[in-house]
């Protein structure tokens, strides 16, 4: 069965591009624009294999979502790749401390490089 990736991204334009690319690579894709939607998807029967997480989000920030994932008994080991346009060292350090499988600055990477990183983390 194809692995499922949850994209948490509030910008519809980028969310659409990311989803198209990942579907093309044969991943199942779920999308959420905020924390409530995201946890609804992770909490239901969806077997999410990896979360692609933006940091600047409405409601709760990406950091808060990440912390909530790490504090959750069921979800704490879920791989998370931060995919954001924040690029300051303090942001990377904060995310690293919470536990991530990658920190990629959107404007510095192509979607192919993103797919490559995802494959390194969860395989095809």
């Amino acid at each position, binding site marked *: 069965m194809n692995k499922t990736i949850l994209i948490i991204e509030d*910008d519809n*334009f*980028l969310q659409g*591009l990311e989803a198209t*690319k990942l579907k*093309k690579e044969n991943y199942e894709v779920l999308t959420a624009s905020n924390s409530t939607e995201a946890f609804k998807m992770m909490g239901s029967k969806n077997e999410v294999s990896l979360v692609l997480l933006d940091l*600047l989000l409405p409601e709760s920030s990406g950091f808060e979502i990440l912390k909530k994932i790490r504090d959750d008994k069921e979800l704490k080991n879920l791989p998370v790749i931060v995919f954001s*346009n*924040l*690029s*300051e*060292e303090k942001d990377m350090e904060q995310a690293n401390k919470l536990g991530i499988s990658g920190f990629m600055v*959107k*404007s*510095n990477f*192509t*979607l*192919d490089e993103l797919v490559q990183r995802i494959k390194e983390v969860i395989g095809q």
Partner: protein
Amino acid sequence: MDKETEIKKLMEENKKMAELCAVKADIVSMSAHQIRTALSGLKWIIKMFLDGDLGKLTAEQENLISKAYDSNDRAIGIVSELLLANKTEDIAEKKYIFSEVDLTELIDNSIFDFSGEANAKGIQMIFLKPEIRLSLVHGDKEKLRVVFQNLLENAIKYSNGHGKIFMALREKDKIIEFSIKDIGICVPDENKSRIFEKFYRDPEARKKDVIGSGIGLFNAKKIIEEHGGKMWFESEKDTGTTFFFSIPISK
């Protein structure tokens, strides 16, 4: 107006200016992140065209689209520079938090941070570590990190490709001296006095790299001076450019 009233008025004005400045910096940061987001989407779409995801391109189309990709990447670079300038402009001004800092470790970390960029240009970064463990300096770790980052970034930017960057650290008479040397462009004699000026960019630097704010060295020097130290440089044609700074060790 008596002196006291005048001072009070000036302090109030200064406070207002500082607040205005902070608001301005926030607006710049927010806008820059939004521009970056739009440019990211553009980058990904152009890449899809270049990769033939949407059908094979003619040679002419490919040529133009790849120019669009480069141009977009340049815009991304400018936005990154803007964000950095926006952040570093206030970093030299912000309150200094002093503690005992290990400069050897800070340099190692900065080298690691820039390893991707250096590799991409085939540049080797060589840190000639002192044989003995050097004294810690009394300094602001985050601000000193900015100094190393600025100096390393410049050295990589203005080096000739496939060159070497040498860094050294030594201690003498209760002072630690750092140097970073690259073989790249040199600063002509007539412009040497201007290199640490705010927003100044040498014409040679502009030729080599169009992106730059002219604020990095200004800030670096200011931070070093806040540590009671000094910063200077030597630049000769063919032998390259070396930047130095020295700061007193812990009190």
